[in-house]
Structure formats: structure tokens, C-alpha cells
């Protein structure tokens, strides 16, 4: 059994390798064109409105059927949590979290963190089994059955979003916010977190329309916002983008990110070379995991790899 799994996996990874050799135009289709999908949806997040009530966290937990949290969602002591010198991050059990920051000489500011659904997602381009997909609606989703748990995307994501199910020995996979694609976005409905927010911190709509609204808000409220829309240009543009009244770095944003996508294989084919280098260790991790999987597990897993192979052809 283990042998068969391994052979099939190799076939699958050969197809993955072939994908890397596609012409730039073909790869562009896979990764989304540079402008993203013009009709794609997005979310404008206005940090000045957030009061840190964590209702959005509760809504995501219900919508995505996530496990019970450690503390109630109305418990604000989580804002003081520091682990490894860092504030809370998204986990496999919490696709979104709200953190509090204390900017110099200003009131505390709260920031909701989730996948930003990049126009050109580094998670997608770094994934060598093509588990990720950017949908025309704007969501960056992934296929858990294809994911081999190599964690390339965790390293590639500039916002540290994908989380890993460390607790699952048999089938460790990546978990992250999916823009409520299956249950809502597909039907044109706003995500659960957006709808739940009492302050309409988040406005849902076409990315292009929202960008105009964002710039309008800056213009119509002189002195209220810093003159920057975080995510308009960063890493090639993100589907969820932000307005703030304090400099973005004071609200915990990484302001050193380039405006170019992290793995720019659409316009610069050469950029793939270093990616291949990063893939090899991951490949071997993949082999190891699959070998372990084959021994301890039976048919369920094989089935998913059959599907994967089918896709590859």
C-alpha cells in the first residue's frame, strides 16, 4: 500500500513540476492576471471604526465550524496575550483574530487579522502541488485533500496567515480564512465576519469600487486618516485592504513589504528559480509524511491522491 501511494505521489509531483515550466501566460492564468480579477470582490477595513468587541471572531468560529476557543469571545484579556514575544496570530482553530495596539500619543487601535486574499498570492505560487486557487470572485481557497502539509505557503505568506494543524498526526494540513467562499462568497453574500460587525468596520463589495470609497473617505475627512490605503499596492495588491488614523506600522502592519508580488513569476519568469530551490526540502518532507501516512492509514488517503492525479492529467 505504501509503495503504491508513493508511486502515485511521484506522478503527481511530476505534473506539479511541469506546471512550473508552463509559459508565463499559462501560469498567469493560474495565478490571476497582474490586475487581479477586475470583477473580484474585496473588503475595505476601516481601523478607525473597530472597538475590539471580537464579534467577528465569534462569527467566523460559527460559520467555519471551528473548535471551541480557549476563552469566551467577549473576553478582552486576549489582547494582553504575548507568545514568543508576539501578539496573537491566526491559528488552525481561529481564522481571524483581533489584536490591540497602543500607538504613541493616540487612543488604542484594534486590528482584525485574516487572510488578505492577495491579487497574486504568494501562498499559491509557492505551493508545488497546486493546492491553492484564486477564484474569479476574489477568494484565495485551497484543497485540503491535495495539501501535503509541506508548509511552503506558511513561509511564503508575507502576512503569516496560513496555520498548520500540528495536533493532527495522521493528516496535518494548512488552514486559513477562505473569504467564506463555500457558504457565502460564491453566492455573492458578504462573509460572516463582515456581516456580524456592529461598527461596519468592514465593507464588502467589488475591489475596484471599494478602492474608490477608500480614497473618498480619506478625501472627505481631512485629518482623520493617514493618506495611504494599505493593500492597494503592497505585494501586488490585496483583496482586503485597510484605512487607519495612525501610521500603519504603529498598528502592527509590515510597512517594509514591496509593491511587487512576493513571488513574481507572472512577469519575471526567472523568479521561479529560487522557488525551485525552496521546493526540494519541502518535497522530501512530503515524501516522509506520505510514507508515514501510507503505513498508518488506509484507503481514505489513497482516494484523495487518486483525485489529485486525475487533476494533474
Amino acid at each position, binding site marked *: 500500500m505504501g509503495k503504491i501511494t508513493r508511486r502515485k505521489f511521484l506522478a503527481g509531483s511530476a505534473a506539479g513540476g511541469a506546471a512550473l515550466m508552463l509559459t508565463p501566460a499559462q501560469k498567469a492564468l493560474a495565478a490571476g492576471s497582474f490586475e487581479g480579477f477586475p470583477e473580484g470582490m474585496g473588503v475595505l477595513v476601516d481601523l478607525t471604526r473597530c472597538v475590539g468587541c471580537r464579534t467577528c471572531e465569534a462569527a467566523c468560529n460559527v460559520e467555519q465550524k471551528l473548535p471551541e476557543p480557549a476563552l469566551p469571545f467577549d473576553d478582552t484579556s486576549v489582547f494582553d496575550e504575548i507568545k514568543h514575544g508576539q501578539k496573537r496570530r491566526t491559528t488552525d482553530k481561529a481564522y481571524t483574530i483581533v489584536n490591540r495596539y497602543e500607538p504613541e500619543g493616540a487612543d488604542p487601535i484594534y486590528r482584525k487579522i485574516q487572510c488578505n486574499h492577495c491579487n497574486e498570492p504568494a501562498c499559491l505560487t509557492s505551493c508545488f502541488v497546486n493546492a491553492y486557487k484564486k477564484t474569479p470572485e476574489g477568494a484565495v481557497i485551497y484543497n485540503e485533500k491535495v495539501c501535503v502539509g509541506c508548509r511552503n505557503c506558511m513561509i511564503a505568506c508575507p502576512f503569516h496567515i496560513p496555520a498548520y494543524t500540528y495536533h493532527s498526526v495522521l493528516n496535518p494540513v494548512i488552514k486559513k480564512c477562505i473569504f467564506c467562499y463555500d457558504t457565502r462568497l460564491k453566492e455573492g453574500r458578504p462573509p460572516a465576519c463582515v456581516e456580524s460587525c*456592529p461598527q*461596519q468596520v468592514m465593507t464588502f463589495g467589488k475591489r475596484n469600487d471599494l478602492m474608490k470609497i477608500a480614497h473618498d473617505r480619506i478625501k472627505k475627512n481631512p485629518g482623520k486618516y493617514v493618506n495611504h490605503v494599505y493593500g492597494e499596492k503592497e505585494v501586488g495588491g490585496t483583496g482586503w485592504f485597510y484605512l487607519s488614523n495612525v501610521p500603519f506600522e504603529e498598528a502592527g502592519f509590515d510597512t517594509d513589504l514591496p509593491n511587487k508580488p512576493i513571488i513574481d513569476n507572472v512577469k519575471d519568469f526567472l523568479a521561479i528559480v529560487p522557488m525551485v530551490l525552496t521546493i526540494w526540502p519541502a518535497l522530501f518532507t512530503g515524501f516522509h509524511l506520505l510514507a508515514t501516512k501510507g503505513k498508518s492509514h488506509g484507503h481514505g488517503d489513497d482516494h484523495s491522491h487518486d483525485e489529485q492525479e486525475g487533476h494533474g492529467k
Partner: protein
Amino acid sequence: MVNAGKQLMVGLGVLLLSSVLAISCYAMDYPDEVEIDVLANLYEAVVFDHAMHVDLTEGCADCHHHTTGTPVLNEYCAKCHDGKEEMDWVSCQDCHSAGPVSAENLNNPKTDFIYHNDKPNLKAAYHLNCIGCHQEVGGPTGCEDCHAKTEAGDEFYRSGEFTPKKSADSSGH
């Protein structure tokens, strides 16, 4: 000199007019209490003490924009609604959609009102207005200062009787 004097007169006139308008606002027939139950699944309805807020605020426009005949405070609203054009719509719900923020709402803006394109929905209109002011004047701002949770609310927030039981493996990495 003449100009300054004239300006002063105009200024006084405006002041007088606005106080007359303000009085006319207070003379209006308004409810002493408003029951707000748009979030009634997670929270008990809020009985809003309108009379108390009328006493505490300077004028109706503090909350109702330009819709009651008192002078407009927001400079953007004032560009069109310069005080001449008060409206009949006083209830928040008349302008702020009680439905969720839908893509449809945003895709079909009423283009004849170009300045009304970024209008918060009803739930946000209340919260932004109430909490925004409460933050400034030091009023209550906690969720449960205004809203009593229902059982469904406790279940949603995993609070009260739904509080997670502390286990050794409580949180992730």
C-alpha cells in the same frame, strides 16, 4: 469697518435663526422612548431613552444629521443641505438599510445622491453614532452596557453558561 459690522449682524442673525430652529426642534413631537430590536436574536431589545438624550445633546442634528430642521453640522452634508432643505425622514431606518451590507447595495448606488454612496447600514449607523459620541463625552461604550445578552448570545460568544471548560490543551500555537 462697515463690512465687519455687517458680518457681525449676519452672524447674529444666523445665531438667532439657529436657536429658533433649535427651539422648533425641541417643540417637535418626538417619542420619549424608542425600542430598538434589530439585533434581537443575540441581545434583548434596547429601550433607548430618547428624552434623556434630547436633554443631553445640543440639538437634533447631533444625531439626526439635517433631517429635523436644525442646522447641519457636517460640512459635507452642508454642501447640499444648507439648512433650507430639511427632510421628512427622521427615523434612522428611513435612510440606513436594515439589511446586511450586501454586494448588491454597493453595486447599485442611487447615483442621484452621489454623496450618499458610502452609507453605513442601520446596525452600523447606530453603533458608529452612539459609540462615537459616547467615546467623546465619556458615556458607556461596552457592549453589555446597552445590550443584555440572550441565551443565544451567550452561545454565540461562548460566554455565561457556554464558557469553555478550561483544559490543559486550551490554546493553539
